[in-house]
């Protein structure tokens, strides 16, 4: 009870703070300056989202099956090797990764999508593997003993029991992804980075903020969205949130 009371108080404080900031921005003319960039922002948000969505979707579509395959008995021995390699991929600094993919794929969206994909893949694969491995062995044995085929065991027992952890991986991955998209500007990929970096170059805070604020909001929004998916999609019996 005390905790929820504290939470409500905190929320009120936050909202008041946001309003105060808004009022202050309005008063010193920053807000109208930001709003000047409105049409640019809307266009760039779309581009930003498209980059994140495409790279994220590819990472999910590749990452989950990869994680599933790497936990099948036949391929289990490769799991460690593959995670090592993917791990190595993420130790490369993001900028270096962008530069590398630019040198392969030229400039524009494709190298950005590729770099974001590599970045996003690791948490998804790792969490898929961790999630599937955390399914207690007795459950799988019970399923086998009752006459489920391996495919049925995967679909009805392993995935539902691992989906919370898998979604947690996707949540982290997408947060990283959205936050990294602004760097796309550096290799001509577009996105809200255009406003941020140009704003920095021109020493124009209103432009910088017009890029930075939506980026932050997008990250929060996507995190919230996946959180909701996690809440509603994960079966109630294995959902720690419900």
């Amino acid at each position, binding site marked *: 009870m005390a905790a929820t009371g504290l939470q409500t108080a905190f929320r009120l404080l936050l909202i008041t703070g946001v309003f105060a900031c808004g009022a202050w921005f309005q008063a010193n003319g920053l807000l109208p300056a930001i709003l000047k960039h409105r049409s640019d922002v809307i266009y760039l948000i779309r581009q930003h989202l498209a980059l994140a969505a495409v790279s994220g979707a590819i990472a999910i579509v590749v990452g989950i099956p990869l994680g599933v395959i790497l936990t099948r008995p036949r391929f289990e021995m490769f799991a460690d090797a593959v995670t090592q390699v993917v791990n190595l991929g993420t130790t490369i600094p993001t900028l270096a990764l962008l530069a590398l993919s630019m040198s392969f794929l030229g400039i524009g969206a494709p190298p950005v999508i590729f770099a974001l994909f590599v970045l996003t893949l690791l948490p998804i694969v790792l969490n898929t593997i961790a999630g599937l491995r955390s399914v*207690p062995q*007795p*459950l799988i*044995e*019970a*399923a*086998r*003993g*009752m*006459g*489920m*085929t391996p495919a*049925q065991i995967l679909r*009805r*027992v392993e995935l*539902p*029991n691992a989906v919370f952890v898998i979604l947690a991986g996707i949540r982290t991955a997408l947060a990283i992804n959205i936050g990294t998209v602004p760097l796309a500007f550096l290799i001509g990929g577009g996105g809200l980075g255009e406003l941020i970096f140009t704003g920095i170059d021109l020493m124009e805070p209103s432009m910088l903020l017009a890029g930075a604020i939506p980026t932050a909001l997008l990250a929060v929004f996507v995190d919230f969205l996946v959180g909701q998916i996690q809440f509603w999609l994960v*079966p*109630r*019996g*294995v959902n720690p949130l419900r």
Partner: protein
Amino acid sequence: MIRLEQVSKHFGTMVAVDRIDMEVPTGAVCVLLGPSGCGKTTTMKMINRLIPPTSGKIFLDGKDTTGVDEVSLRRSIGYVIQQIGLFPNMTVEDNICVVPDLLGWPRAKSRKRASQLLDMVNLDPSVFLKRYPKQLSGGQQQRVGVVRALAADPPVLLMDEPFGAIDPINREVIQDEFMKLQAELKKTIVFVSHDIDEAVKMATRIAIFRDGKLIQYDTPDNILAHPVDAFVSEFVGSDRTLKRLRLIKVTDAMMSDPPRVKAEDTLETAVRLMDEHGHVSVVMVGPRGRARGVVRHEVARDLKGLVGEHQEPLPGIVNIKDDLRSAVSQMFTHGVTWLACVDDDGFYKGYITQKSITQVLGTTYRDR
């Protein structure tokens, strides 16, 4: 019927199960018993081919299981694993319906079955069907686990220490419930246990394992009365004769058609009756034959009058359906050497004495 022929399982150089020959008749409960690591689980899992035997053959109703499709074989065998293994992502209802769903039963039929089965183990369907396993107590989970194995009505059940995770009191309750079910369902059951008391209670046949070998395969009474070697007798415990008491019903040790008197009989009649039978007391029954009291020889012989005036309360009564364990317990509680035996309605059926109990226990020894 399940038949194992020279079945062995090697894990590398380690011999987990060594040339087992065994036959479980239809409708029997066969308990695999032995110390940890002796190969009970391995033997059981070879029956539904979760573990393929290294050599030897296993027949189900005369059919070699080597050739048949493993998936459909397993769907026809109920399986309760040691760790219960309810699927946490499914409701109790869906857990119970796993095999019926795999077999493609119509939904209405399988859900109705789930509800009936829950009822059978005293869990209210309206409360429990929609719950998730984590919302059940350990004992409730274990019941659902057992019921889940019964869902598609398989003729054969494999149960690996199904009641292992429950406290002793609830375990007894579930065992009793299960035996009641089994009396109705008459499944062929292979049941792993390491608890001799559980085995004696449940088994029609006990198989005692040691280091992968089948040491003795016999009825519970024979295992207790005639352990084949020192290992078995040590395993069943030095109190094995006391354990046998559980296996014998009061009716088997009871002297039936006993002498009796009524309240309106004279003490003379009572004394004559006692002298005739060489007894020191006689039970007085009501008008329709219910056991009411007792008249002692030493009281009756010096007095005149009616039985009803000099009767004393019965020192101890035992139901004819009880086992000898509760009979003996009664004797010690009341410090007597005999008990009146009555049926469910209280009618006097006979009496049981320490001597008759000793005799019954001894019969099997003389048989040899």
